[in-house]
């Protein structure tokens, strides 16, 4: 039987600025 492919799930993305903040806080946390 033919199955309709299920719709793709939208992945929510942070903004560019939010990604940079995440990166900065990770660097601050690491020893």
């Amino acid at each position, binding site marked *: 039987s033919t199955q309709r*492919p299920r*719709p*793709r*799930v*939208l*992945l*929510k*993305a*942070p*903004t*560019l600025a939010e*990604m*940079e903040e*995440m*990166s900065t806080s990770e660097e601050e946390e690491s020893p």
Partner: protein
Amino acid sequence: RQVTVQRKEKDFQGMLEYHKEDEALLVRNLVTDLKPQMLLGTVPCLPAYLLYMCIRHADYVNDDLKVHSLLTSTINGIKKVLKKHNDDFEMTSFWLSNTCRLLHCLKQYSGDEGFMTQNSMKQNEHCLKNFDLTEYRQVLSDLSIQIYQQLIKIAEGVLQPMIVSAMLENESIQGLSGVKPTGYRKRSSSMVDGDNSYCLEAIVRQMNSFHAVMCDQGLDPEIIQQVFKQLFYVINAVTLNNLLLRKDVCSWSTGMQLRYNISQLEEWLRGRNLHQSGAVQTMEPLIQAAQLLQLKKKTPEDAEAICSLCTSLSTQQIVKILNLYTPLNEFEERVTVAFIRTIQAQLQERNDPQQLLLDSKHMFPVLFPFNPSSLTMDSIHIPACLNLEFL
């Protein structure tokens, strides 16, 4: 007996699997520690294709956290490289090219029919299966704009010290120094003078260098066109602003040299197939200023000719140039006040901007048209120098 072993053709799926714990190493080797020179002779934008293949596998196994993590690390890695190399044209161009290519891949293989019209059947098989990455495409688009702005800033920084010298002060036309206004004679030079002056060839050489780097790295032709449109705008703005403030360059001979220099730049654009980029149009104010310096400036008919020609110069700019205009010698008259009044009367209907000088910091908004690739993911090979054996 000789035995012929038939090797089975490997059918690559066009994906790259990696362990989550290898993500940092992947981003280090493919982004942060990567030097463009390491990839000479390989397919342009190889990092973008490899990254897409990794994203594709994470999508294939339905691991959304892995997709998020890889895209975030990649984008942050690219930003880190660009911050470190914020004065490096080649590196910035390399990452503009790769970021745009990754964006094109995410569209081309998104599964959206609008982006699949030029795909082969094989390429359609390589589309994402589980995730819609529209929001990440927006992030990559924003990143591309930032990288483009950095690229322009670097290129303008290189050109800036050359512009006035090359466009207005250096004489390449033989015999022109004899026609300079009295008191303003300057010796001509063919290369850089001891006092850091530049000739037009220096600008042309630099443009050649920029063009070669961007082409070798596979930057989309539409983006290359926009880069040169922007750079030519800056040349126009800086040169014209200088002209509007200096008496010593408002002369017939400067007009002559300027027209020659502009024609050389136009020829360069044509030679690189960039004459449709809009770059020539951005030079129109300067072209008209150069012509204005050479036109007769005496009779009402002369005034009419000037007004119909100088459509890209404001009234204020035309009047300024006429006020600054320095005659060749004692036999040529200065531009009279009456002539300038005639010009102003003829142009009073115009709704001109009030400011005299052009904004040399103005940037045209950049567009990144969709540019799918004919390359198939199953044909990509990873060079050993990238140290990605764990993929």
